[in-house]
């Protein structure tokens, strides 16, 4: 009596399964639903719409802490508006990148050993660039 399936029948079954479960199995047959990019955002809060003042107020020195808070919070609102104006850069990005590049070399030179320091001077085009090649131990050939 033979229990189980023959190796042949097993192979056939496997092949059939593979046919069914092909790669296409994992994709739905629906048409592509493109979500329309909406340019409208919904907000339920009034704080976006109107610039409202801070809710706690004190007048004529009744509560000094609250008066301090009033100045802080209302100034914060105005400061945010001012900050939104464009900030001018003192140093342009390219110049910053260049400086940084050479800076790495100069500081690296400080920590390099005496032998390595010689490597730093070779590449000078006005820039100091360290060479990455190091002298490794070479096994003597017979």
């Amino acid at each position, binding site marked *: 009596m033979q229990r189980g399936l023959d190796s042949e029948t097993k192979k056939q079954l496997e092949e059939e399964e593979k046919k069914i479960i092909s790669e296409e199995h994992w994709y739905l047959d629906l048409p592509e639903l493109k979500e329309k990019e909406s340019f409208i955002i919904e907000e*339920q809060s009034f704080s976006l719409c109107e610039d409202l003042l801070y*809710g706690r107020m004190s007048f004529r020195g009744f509560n000094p802490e609250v008066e301090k808070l009033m100045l802080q*919070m209302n100034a914060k609102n105005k400061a945010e508006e001012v900050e939104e104006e464009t900030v001018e850069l003192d140093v342009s990005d390219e110049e910053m990148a260049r400086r940084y590049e050479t800076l790495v070399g100069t500081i690296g030179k400080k920590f390099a050993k005496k032998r390595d320091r010689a490597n730093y001077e070779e590449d000078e085009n006005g820039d100091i660039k360290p060479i990455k090649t190091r002298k490794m131990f070479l096994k003597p050939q017979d």
Partner: protein
Amino acid sequence: MAEAAAVVAESLAGYRARAARAVLEQVVLPGEELLLPEQEDGEGPGGAGERPLRLNAGARSRGRVVCGPGLRRCGDRLLVTKCGRLRHKEPGSGSGGGVYWVDSQQKRYVPVKGDHVIGIVTAKSGDIFKVDVGGSEPASLSYLAFEGATKRNRPNVQVGDLIYGQFVVANKDMEPEMVCIDSCGRACGMGVIGQDGLLFKVTLGLIRRLLAPDCEILQEVGKLYPLEIVFGMNGRIWVKAKTIQQTLILANILEACEHMTADQRKQIFSRLAES
């Protein structure tokens, strides 16, 4: 009467979505659809029947438009859900298409995330307080949500105290939650409101008017006598002055401001200043 009815019938029969720009500062009714500026270009004057579909969606040069309270997004248009005046705010820094909203009037408050409100502590159960903010359910306030509160150092809050806090969770599916600290952990004036004083309720629109940057009412009130006011966006105002009489006068003025014209207000203030 007959003429008014005829006009209304006419407007309903010949219904077409109006341009939002054309309706600014006018009264809009729920159910109206508003077109955003870029979409009006295809509309000819007296265009017959349907508008041609615009397929050049790629030519959008505007940023995002925010539709605020009272408006909803309906496809590419705005749908009005509350009656009131349509307002618009230009974007400050140039990005985005600005904000549209409806300035409506109501007394019932619906919790909104980020709003600062005055609540009354109604119950204390374990680690949270139940705070009544005037919405459909009481908000929950954890005892750790106060400045400097730890498990050992609990805040001194009793049932019946007034709390000034803001919502962190407020939507129609969940119970609203509020806290008395900001995102950095500082109190910023929130927490338990002190002793004495008077709490009363006004409409939500009045609160927003009073909190507008250039509010004359507050400037005049501030000149009368030393006082302290806390405004909650849920329509509650707490006032305190040195004597009970002054507090009551203040409360009456603020309540009456709703329906007074500027002249009447000035009269009252001048009378008060004399006495």
